[in-house]
């Protein structure tokens, strides 16, 4: 009898914890990624009893370093209800390393979990509750941190990189460049340029070439040639293509 009362009390607090935790923490998140294997709009019912990564939500730490929150789900099966749990990553690690590990923040007794996209973010549907998660990527001049923990301050020289098919090879971390970044050509992609953390300007010796542009030159051939018309250098230096990158020598 008393055990039942205590169990109800305990489960109600556990319930409040995870959902309240993420609802507050994820306001103004930097980015949200849904596991591409999930189908938005559908309740997640299979594969039964399997652990899946649902979302990766990147938020800002107290010092405006990055924290990755990884939301996982053990899909319900015949004998067990679903379990939602959260791991946070504070260094340069992947969410995938945390899957199936026991978590402090979790919610069990879940029977229906779904995700919907909407403009500005993602809607998480947990049984009868809906949690909208909004990212502030559209207002990049204001960053919010709602947590007390510090995050990771990444520094990647080529802070944004696209490949020949314009797929993102390096997600944009240029905000962590201490002296800004500028666009450079490192692939055949014509609708996006990579970016490099700046110490010098473009066009200097042994640095990246400046971009003249495809529209201006109407150039349609292979970009990766010496004296490539889509780029230029300063003061008598020539454009060369080394390791797919347009540089000046």
């Amino acid at each position: 009898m008393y055990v039942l009362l205590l169990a109800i009390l305990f489960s109600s607090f556990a319930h409040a914890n995870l959902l309240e935790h993420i609802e507050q923490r994820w306001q103004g998140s930097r980015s949200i990624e849904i596991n591409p294997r999930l189908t938005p709009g559908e309740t997640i019912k299979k594969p039964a009893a399997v652990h899946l990564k649902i979302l990766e939500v990147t938020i800002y730490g107290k010092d405006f370093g990055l924290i990755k929150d990884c939301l996982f789900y053990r899909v319900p099966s015949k004998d067990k209800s679903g379990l939602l749990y959260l791991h946070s990553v504070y260094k340069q690690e992947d969410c995938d390393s945390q899957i199936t590990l026991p978590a402090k923040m979790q919610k069990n007794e879940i029977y229906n979990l779904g995700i919907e996209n909407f403009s500005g973010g993602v809607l998480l549907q947990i049984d009868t509750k809906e949690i909208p998660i909004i990212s502030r990527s559209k207002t990049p001049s204001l960053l919010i941190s709602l947590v007390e923990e510090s995050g990771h301050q990444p520094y990647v020289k080529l802070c944004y990189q696209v490949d020949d098919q314009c797929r993102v090879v390096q997600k944009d971390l240029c905000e962590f460049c201490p002296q800004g970044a500028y666009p450079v050509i490192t692939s055949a992609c014509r609708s996006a340029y990579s970016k490099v953390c700046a110490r010098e300007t473009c066009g200097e010796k042994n640095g990246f070439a400046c971009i003249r542009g495809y529209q201006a030159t109407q150039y349609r051939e292979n970009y990766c040639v010496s004296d490539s018309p889509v780029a230029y250098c300063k003061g008598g230096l020539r454009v060369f293509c080394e390791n797919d990158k347009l540089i000046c020598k």
Partner: protein
Amino acid sequence: MNIFTIISKYKYLALTLAILSLLIVFIGRDFQTDDKNFELAETIEKIDQLWSNGGDGCSDIPASVDFKACHQQHLFCDLQKLTDLSILGYQENLAGDLTLQLAWERQKFSLKLLNRCHRALLPSGVYSSGPRGYAEEIWSNENQEIWIDRFYVSQYKIKKWFQAKNIPHGKLAFSPRPALHLSLQKMQEFCRDQKGQLLQSQILDAASFYPAEGENSLQLKSFYPWSKARELKKDCEHFIYQGCDPVADLNRSGVSWMGIFHTLGGEIEVVDNPFQPRANLKLSSIFLPVDSPWHQLGLRAHWSGRGLGANEFDLREQYLGRWRADIKISGVAFRCMYYY
């Protein structure tokens, strides 16, 4: 009868009451949380607005709306008017970004306000560097975000930067007047610390020439920023030339089609010219009379960047070679550009 006996007697009633009260508590908490989250979001939006647009300006420093919009003394004053918000701490980095630690109804959070003050975005297009009659360097900025400072860098900003970097700066005042006495190297260093770089010549050209379409528009560039017509508007509101009041506190003359100021007239300004490195000095300024041929877009002289001695300047026009100025230069202004 003690409490355990009572509960045993009425156990089903007690259970129902317990469940009901728990439901009320956590549904109630849900609503409370929703409301609180909504109000917090609203408060954050208000702060964003104040930072981007400047508040009512409740300080007593007599400065323009433009100046107030970017400086945090005024922001703090306005923030204090927001109810339930307390400022626990703040820091400013070299780039002028402001980090605030705040508490709102006992909830602590931090905001980082990125210094995006006074920048205009260069629209995507194909541009031609150099003055009218010169069309050797065509370039385009598709897929690039290029932001340009609308005003010159002020002494105020430079003094704060010197302080942050522990560089002696005795002579500088906290003035909104343009900073005119830096070396080219220091200017570039300042712009780098703002996460940008010194404004480039072809970017200034792109931002200044009146946009034109059709054939030959890249050769037949406009003379002046305000229209395609060859009509010099001889009044100090359109551009600042000899005899006008000097550039003070972010004034707005010489405006171009995309919203940057002093594209004509104002101060003598240095730029970085990757196509023609010697062509790096805009002479159209308050130091030249209204009918000087230098009051035309795209013309450039040369500055070594090292000091203000007469032999550091070559005042022959570097693109067309048609004119030579005869003035003594006492200061060179600059501004920055950014790729984010």
